[in-house]
Each structure stands twice: as structure tokens, then as C-alpha cells.
């Protein structure tokens, strides 16, 4: 009898995996032949001492560990080569059009006298950055000053004006939209319209609206030159308005979906405490929306750093005089990059692009750090 118990005990341990695996993971279970043999052998066993047939019943006080399913694997999905086959096209394309360009651009930015026709260069240098930052003379000719004089200040102004303004505006609009009953869906759609437009087409419309003989001057009874031949700082105003207008729908969409996820109880509690509307907004809505606001801050900061199409579509060139502008006074960093690619100054373009890349990375990390203390989840 003791001998039998031993055998049974041993069997419980070994049999268990097969019992559990039988239901769901039938396909993948590799039959353990030795175990199966034991099992069939014992199940038919007749105990002569007590004159009974022993049935195998699992004891109730078994340890969980004994029944852990082990050694069962999704065999069919473990084909490494198959996975790489599925990924193949994507990896090749990403390598050619994403990773190689990234490395190559960084390399061009640091290469001295890189020639893209022949691919030759004369060693590694910081000269290209020196040129665009007006530290080193560009060739035998003059100095390159467009980058620090126009591109960087313009980009920073656009960023620090449009991002806070558009997020604040989007927040107010979405809170208002969320609080109304009638026409909510309709108005939501109206506010989303700027998203589904061609950026160039609407840029053209804005330049018509802000024309010297246009409707804005007519309404406000002024004679301001906004676009063509305008003062640089004046021209920033319609540009910022356009960027904010164009960026609103995305932000409203994100904030509204966030607002709809906030528990009504918070507002009821605030009502009981007789908190005012402004207080409710600042103390409840904004903190609870902070993940969405942070996400929008990061994406719109990055988006504003990369502003380009808005300038082209409104001004038709790097400056307020359009394509004929000698002074590129409306240029942004990205505009500078493209212009230098077109002109053949690949090294300067690469240096500016690397600068932009670093700037974007820094801002992303700063915002992620700050968010850890501020974001309420």
C-alpha cells in the first residue's frame, strides 16, 4: 500500500500538466511519452490486497506549484524567420528612408566640405554649426546670418505665442462645448472643420483676408499692411492667427474626449462645496485633464518648431515680399533647412536640421520631467 501511495503521489505531479493543458492549449502540448506510459499502466492497476481497482483522484490539498503548466509553447508562432519575413519590407524601408537618413544627416552636419555630388569630405568639424550660428565665416564670401537673425527668433516667437494661446483657447472651447446641450454634435463638427482642409488653400484664404484691401482692414477700418511688404513683426500677427486657427481642431478633439471621461462626481462635489466656475475649472478640470494637456503641449511644441507650410502658403516665400524677398524675414528653422537644400548648401541644411532635432529632444525631455511632478493621474 505504501508503495502504491508513492507511485500515486508521483503520478499526481506528472499527470497534472496534461489535465490542465487538455482544454485550451491542446495543439501546442507536446505529449510526454514516458509520462503517458506510466499513466495507462497505473490506471488499470488492480490492488489485490484490498481487492479494488484504484482510481486516480487528485487530492484537494495539493500545492498550486505542482499544477503549474510548464513546457507548453505556442509552437506555431515561434517561427523566427516567419516573423522577420513579415517585418522585412518595413525594416528595409525604415532602414533606407528613416535610419540611414538620420545617421547620414548627422554625419553631413559634422563633415567638413562635404560634397553631395561625389560624397567626399575632409574630416570631422564643427564648422557647419559655426557658419549657421554666425561664428565662422562662410567661405571666402560673407557671413551667413539668416539663421540666427530670422529663422531662430521667428520659430521661437511662433512657438511661444501659438502653443499657449491655442491650448488655452481649445480648453475654454471644449469646456464650453461639453457644458451645452443643444447642437453639441453639430458645433463639435464645426470646430473640427479646419482639420480637414488643405493647409495651402486656407493659407491663401488668410492672405486674402489680411490683404491690404481685404476684409480685416475693412472691418477694423485700418490701412495696415499685413502680408505683402509688411513689417516683420506685424506680419507675425496674421501668421500666428492662422497657426492657432489651424491647430485648434486637433486640440479640441483631444480635450473633449478627455473631458467626457471625467467622473461627474467631482463636479457634484464641487457644487456642494459651492465652488465657482473658474475655481472648478482650475481645481478640477485642468488637473484631471493634465495628461491630455501635456500630450498636446509636447505635440504642439514640436509642431510649432517645424512650422513651414503656413509661412509658404501665406507669404509665398521666405519673406514678406514673397518669392522676390531678398531678406528672408519670415523664415523659420525648417524653412531655412529646405531653402538650403534647394540652394545646394547641404551642410548648412544638415547642421540646422541637427540643431532642430536636438532642440525637439530637449523640449520633449524637459516636458516629460516637469510632467512627473505636475500631472495628476
Amino acid at each position, binding site marked *: 500500500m505504501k508503495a502504491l501511495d508513492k507511485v500515486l503521489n508521483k503520478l499526481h505531479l506528472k499527470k497534472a500538466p496534461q489535465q490542465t493543458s487538455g482544454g485550451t492549449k491542446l495543439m501546442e502540448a507536446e505529449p510526454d511519452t514516458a509520462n503517458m506510459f506510466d499513466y495507462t499502466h497505473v490506471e488499470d492497476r488492480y490492488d489485490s490486497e484490498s481487492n479494488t481497482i484504484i482510481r486516480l483522484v487528485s487530492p484537494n490539498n495539493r500545492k498550486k506549484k505542482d499544477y503549474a503548466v510548464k513546457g507548453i509553447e505556442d509552437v506555431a508562432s515561434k517561427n523566427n524567420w516567419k516573423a522577420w519575413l513579415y517585418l522585412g519590407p518595413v525594416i528595409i524601408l525604415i532602414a533606407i528612408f528613416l535610419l540611414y537618413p538620420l545617421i547620414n544627416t548627422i554625419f553631413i552636419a559634422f563633415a567638413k566640405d562635404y560634397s553631395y555630388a561625389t560624397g567626399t569630405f575632409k574630416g570631422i568639424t564643427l564648422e557647419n554649426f559655426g557658419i549657421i550660428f554666425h561664428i565662422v565665416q562662410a567661405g571666402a564670401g560673407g557671413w551667413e546670418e539668416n539663421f540666427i537673425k530670422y529663422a531662430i527668433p521667428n520659430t521661437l516667437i511662433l512657438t511661444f505665442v501659438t502653443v499657449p494661446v491655442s491650448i488655452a483657447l481649445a480648453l475654454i472651447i471644449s469646456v464650453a462645448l461639453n457644458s451645452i446641450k443643444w447642437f453639441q454634435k453639430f458645433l463639435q463638427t464645426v*470646430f473640427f472643420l479646419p482639420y480637414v482642409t*488643405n493647409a495651402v488653400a486656407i493659407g*491663401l484664404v488668410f492672405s486674402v483676408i489680411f490683404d491690404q484691401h481685404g476684409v480685416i482692414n475693412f472691418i477694423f477700418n485700418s490701412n495696415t499692411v499685413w502680408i505683402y511688404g509688411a513689417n516683420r513683426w506685424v506680419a507675425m500677427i496674421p501668421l500666428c492667427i492662422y497657426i492657432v486657427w489651424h491647430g*485648434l481642431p486637433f486640440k479640441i478633439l483631444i480635450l473633449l474626449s478627455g473631458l467626457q471621461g471625467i467622473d461627474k462626481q467631482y463636479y457634484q462635489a464641487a457644487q456642494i462645496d459651492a465652488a465657482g466656475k473658474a475655481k472648478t475649472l482650475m481645481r478640477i478640470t485642468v488637473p484631471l485633464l493634465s495628461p491630455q494637456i501635456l500630450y498636446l503641449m509636447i505635440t504642439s511644441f514640436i509642431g510649432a518648431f517645424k512650422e513651414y507650410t503656413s509661412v509658404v502658403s501665406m507669404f509665398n516665400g521666405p519673406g514678406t515680399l514673397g518669392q522676390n524677398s531678398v531678406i528672408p524675414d519670415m523664415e523659420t528653422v525648417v524653412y531655412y533647412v529646405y531653402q538650403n537644400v534647394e540652394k545646394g548648401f547641404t551642410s548648412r541644411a544638415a547642421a540646422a536640421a541637427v540643431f532642430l532635432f536636438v532642440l525637439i529632444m530637449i523640449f520633449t525631455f524637459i516636458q516629460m520631467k516637469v510632467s512627473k511632478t505636475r500631472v495628476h493621474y
Partner: protein
Amino acid sequence: MAELARVNKTYIDFKKERVNPNLVLSIEESGKTVDAIKKTEKVMKIISTVFTYIFILVLALGVIFPFYWMIITSLKQRTEIIAANQTFFPKIVMWTNFSYVFSVFDFTNYMFNTIIVAIFSTIGTLLTTVFAAFAFARLKFKGRDAVFAVFLMTMMIPGEMMVISNYLTVSAFGWISNQTRIDAYLCMIVPFVVSVFHIYLLRQNFKQIPNELYLAAKVDGKSDWSFLWQVMVPLAAPTLISITILKFMGTWNSYVWPALVTKKEEFRLISNGLRGSAFTNVDTNEVEYGYQMAASFCVTVPLFLLFVFFRKYIMRGVGRAGIKG
């Protein structure tokens, strides 16, 4: 009474129940009656609702105004557009602006280019996205998480970084010099048939499909390939539609890259055509706003129609990105 209140969940009306009909409940400090407070609250609510609506409607008008102005300007005469007194409806409706756009601006050609590029880059993107998302969501292989992390990191790189080298790459492929129409299309399609963001979107969607479906398909003797096309793709159809529409809109709006790689005006896409010089009056060197707005209108309308029919998918696809920051 108590019995009734419990059963019907009615509440005691103090006005009826009070002993002395002249007794009025009032809040002690303010001295206002409950009714008065209720009334002021109601009035305040109506006022704030009205203000909210006024605020929203004013902003909505601001949002719509550029569209409105585009339409009426496209129907105005030149003299009316630059007149000192701006009109909010055209005096003479100039349908000829539109016929000019189709004859001189060569709208059909730009449209054709854009649609060709959009169709092929969308198909390419869908295929690569489905394969990659399937591999990441379903298959197990060494280095999967590492590869996926690298993919996600490439989302942070600004596209402008790539433009410089990609220009060199496509010219190394021989698509720039002696450019034919096919070359131009290849330049505009091939670099954009992969989108990491869409792979990420679809992978999340594929991951939600329960494991049991996969195992059941395996029991039925289906291969990975047929499982992907017969089960996963139909289940993820909404996401795929969103991807298709967003990709199409992306091509419709793309400006920089086509302008950079196409060497002839006739190979360019619709946005480039819009910003081109076709609307400048040769004699006076002034921009013909009427024609320009008519062309802008023609470019905007297809996107609008797309939005009207696929609003749900567009808003979902765009909104998906921010649901959990």
C-alpha cells in the same frame, strides 16, 4: 403617508405639510427663502447658458469665416475683391472664375497626380502596416521588443531630418535626373509607404483580438497568413479605414517633398499647383485672388466630402492618438 413615500418614492412636500400656512422656510444667514434661492439659481443658469452659446457661436463663426470668405471671393470680380468697400456677398456672381481654373490652372492634371500618388502610397502603407503590426502583435521572435522600441523612437525624429538624405537617396536611385512621370511618382510614393505611427495604432488594435481566436483558427488548421487576412484584418477594419483616410489626407496636403523632388511643373501635386504662379496676372504682376480662391475651393471640396462621409473614422483616427497621453 410614510408607507406611501416608501413605495412610490415620493417626498414630503413641506408646503402642503406645514402646520402654519404663513410659515416660510428661509436660510438663516442670508435671509433668503428657498424659493428665492432656487429662482436666482435658475436665472443664473439661463444667463450662463446664453453666454456660453454666444461665446461658442462667435468662435464658431471665426472658424467658419475663412471658408465663407473663400467661397464668396471665388465668385467675385477682381474690381470687387480689391474695392474699398468690401461686400459680404458678390454683386455679380462670376462662375467664369471656375472655368478659368479648369482651363488654365490645369486642375485635372494636378488632381490626377495627387490621386495616383495617394492611391499607391495608401496601398503600400496598408500592406506594410498590416504585416508589421501582425508580427509585433501576434508572432513571437527574438528581439521583438527591441525592434519595436526602435520603431517607436523613430517617431520622435522630425521628418525634416530625413529630407536632406532622402533627396540624395532618391537621386541615387536615378529618379531625379531626366525625370519621367513614373520617376516622379516613385519619388513621391516610395519613401512614404511606411508609417511607424500607423503600425503602432494597428498593433494596439490587433493586440485586443483575443488569443482564443488564434488558437481556434490553429485547431481548424489555418495558417498564420489566412488567419491574418480572414480574421484579424476584418476585425481591425475600422482602424484600417482610419489609416486609409488619414493617409489620403496626408498626400492631399503634402507640399514640401513634392516641390523638392519634382523637376517639372506637370508632375507636381495639388498643393504645389495652388501655390504656383498660375494665378499671377502676367501684365500687372498681381495675384488674381478670384481665380486663386476658386482653385482653393476646388481643392477643399473633396476633403470636405471625405469628412462628411467618414467623419466617424477621421475623428476616431485622429483622437486615438491622445486618449491616454
